């Protein structure tokens, strides 16, 4: 009888542990083109994590860009299916996502995770600007960047020019470095097929950011209109940049590395790629402001969100995986591989990263640019407002409307659209 009981007990324990061993699924939707160097890194890390945590199954889902991830999450949730547990989406999408209840707050997970509070505190304040809404924490920085000015230091030295310290100098330098009306080389290229982001440093450099809070935009502020005019001046007055809208986000970095343009305004996320392909000394700095000695930049990039509709177990596992991914050493390694700015103080403090910054001064410059960075456009109905602003910016750049008319129209349209949210 006793042997039977013992056998039963052993069986139950064996069965019990067998049942409990079903792995928790954590999936991460990451916005990247199908074949980018980052995917290899992320895959390696997820393998490593699974090896260390056999009770967790990590799936990486790569899809297009930030809008594609967001749309996929939205459609999945509305379709009644479970979206990927974690998703990297724009930090500025927070209002839309929270209002539509597509993401869950991280507060309770932070409270119960080991060293949760310290984990959150370690993030640089400049990058936490869009993480809080309605008093709760909704996302943590994942890959954050800033808009900077890349310049060909060798060309500048050859032309005996110093890096520009104001709009005036920027225009004149670009003019001096333009060869053959742009056919051989442009002075500067500014991608504007999705203009709001590369344009913001110009507005900030003029003295006013394009928005003040989630319900107030400043599109027709005189400073912003002046910034639009400056962009036009670069092609019309200084003849240093291609006229109109420049659809060159993908190609401007290649042009810069090939010497076809002396300067570009681009994301710090392109730094690694540029350093690899450029055969000259690359200079990095924040975008010069209007007044001499002023600098301007704007933050960007994606945060890690927890999507709605998952069990507590899944959410805990997801948060643990997030903490693993955002470990200071990995954040530092990620930055080194990509040029995204490390967003944790402890990451920049590692000896390894300090050594790398000494080796790659451009990285330090990128981090330094952060000091002049103001928040990226983030309002309610962000898609709608961005579309309006982009359309009117491009109308002004293409000359179909004057800067004043375009910006007034943008302001009116945005106000109307934001009225629904008040």
């Amino acid at each position, binding site marked *: 009888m006793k042997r039977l009981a013992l056998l039963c007990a052993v069986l139950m324990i064996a069965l019990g542990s067998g049942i409990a061993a079903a792995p928790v699924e954590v999936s991460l939707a990451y916005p990247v083109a199908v074949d980018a160097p980052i995917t290899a890194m992320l895959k390696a890390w997820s393998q490593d994590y699974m090896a260390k945590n056999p009770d967790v199954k990590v799936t990486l889902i790569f899809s297009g860009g930030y*809008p594609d991830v*967001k*749309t996929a999450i*939205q*459609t999945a949730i*509305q379709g009644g299916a479970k979206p990927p547990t974690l998703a990297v989406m724009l930090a500025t999408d927070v*209002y*839309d996502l929270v*209002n*539509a209840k597509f993401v869950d707050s991280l507060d309770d997970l932070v409270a119960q995770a080991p060293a949760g509070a310290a984990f959150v505190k370690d993030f640089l304040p400049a990058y936490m600007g869009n993480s809080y809404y309605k008093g709760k924490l909704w996302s943590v920085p994942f890959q954050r960047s800033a808009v900077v000015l890349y310049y060909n230091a060798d060309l500048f030295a050859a032309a005996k020019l110093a890096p520009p310290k104001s709009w005036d100098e920027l225009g004149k330098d670009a003019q001096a470095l333009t060869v053959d009306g742009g056919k051989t080389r442009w002075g500067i290229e500014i991608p504007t*097929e999705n203009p709001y982001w590369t344009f913001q440093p110009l507005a900030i450099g003029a003295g006013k950011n394009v928005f003040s809070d989630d319900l107030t935009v400043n599109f027709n502020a005189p400073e912003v209109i002046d910034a639009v005019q400056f962009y036009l001046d670069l092609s019309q007055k200084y003849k240093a940049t291609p006229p109109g*809208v420049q*659809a060159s986000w993908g190609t401007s970095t290649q042009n810069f590395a090939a010497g076809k343009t002396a300067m570009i305004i681009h994301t710090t996320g392109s730094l690694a790629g540029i350093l690899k392909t450029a055969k000259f000394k690359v200079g990095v700095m924040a975008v010069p402001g209007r007044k001499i000695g002023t600098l301007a930049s704007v933050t960007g990039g994606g945060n890690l969100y927890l999507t709605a509709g998952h069990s507590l177990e899944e959410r805990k596992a997801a948060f643990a995986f997030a903490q693993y991914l955002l470990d200071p050493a990995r954040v530092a390694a990620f930055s080194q591989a990509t040029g995204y700015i490390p967003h944790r103080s402890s990451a920049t403090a590692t000896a390894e990263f300090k050594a790398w910054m000494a080796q790659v001064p451009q990285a330090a410059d990128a981090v330094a640019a952060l000091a002049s960075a103001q928040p990226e456009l983030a309002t*309610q*109905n962000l*898609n*709608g407002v961005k*579309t*309006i602003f*982009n*359309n009117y910016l*491009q*109308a002004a750049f*293409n000359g179909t409307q004057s800067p004043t008319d375009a910006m007034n129209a943008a302001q009116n*349209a945005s106000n109307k659209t934001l009225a*629904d*949210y008040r």
Partner: protein
Amino acid sequence: MREVGVTNRHRVLPYLLVAPTLVFVTAFTLLPLGESLVGSLFKHKLNIPRFQIPIYAGLGNYADLFKDPEFLQVVANTGIYVLALIPLLLVAALVLAFLLDGRIKGLAFFRLAVFHPTVLPLVSAATIWMFFLTPGYGLWNQLLHLFGYSGPQNWAGNPSLAIFALALVAFWKNVGFLMLFFLTGLQNLDHSLIEAARLDGAGGLRLVRGVILPLIRRQTLFVTTIAFIGAFQTVDHVFVLTQGGPSGTSTLPLYYLWQLRFERLDVGRGDAVTVLLILVLLAFTITNTLMSERHEN
């Protein structure tokens, strides 16, 4: 219709047989139409707390649409797209049909060459053209260069040219398909009529304009309708080539519909655009039916 002796058993059977088709058609065509109609009368936006529960707004969505410059731009885009694409398609399809009518060496090969894009998914056609349209080494630009073109090269990224890039892809994909109908029409013509006209002295272009075109009027009408409906129904190439841009200059109605519902989560407005889209297509189909019936009388 055959009369069959109706027994008790057969009184119910026809209804049962028709039921499956009826159920599916009702569930996925008729009811959705009704849903859209009703839904379009409500303001329902998933990302605004105030409108997460639908609020009755009468024709508000429609009024807002017609006041919205973005929607008006979509209408304008559609106008340009249709005006550029349809006449070109019709003329090219007809000319090709003439060329391919009759016996000629290598006919099968030529027909294959003209027709093959139709078989491919529009997504593939768009990816092929994406590469083809690349500024610089893209063959399209090299071809244009041969003809002395010196304008902007990045068609898909240019606000004034993007819509034409879309029309170009749609043209390449559909001209073979439309040519087929003209070809059938030409091959079914009564040769004696044409011979008579030719004997009468009509030749070349006069023959075409005076005799042949009127004879294939039904085909022409029909082809125009398909071309028109096709232009509205497929927007795969917008997803691939331009994503509606730059600045919304290449947003076509169905793509706009998708954006409204799935990107901006504006359900009410999405329904309104659905209704408008269907009304336009219905109007076209009905007009075609009426015109062809009148013609036959």
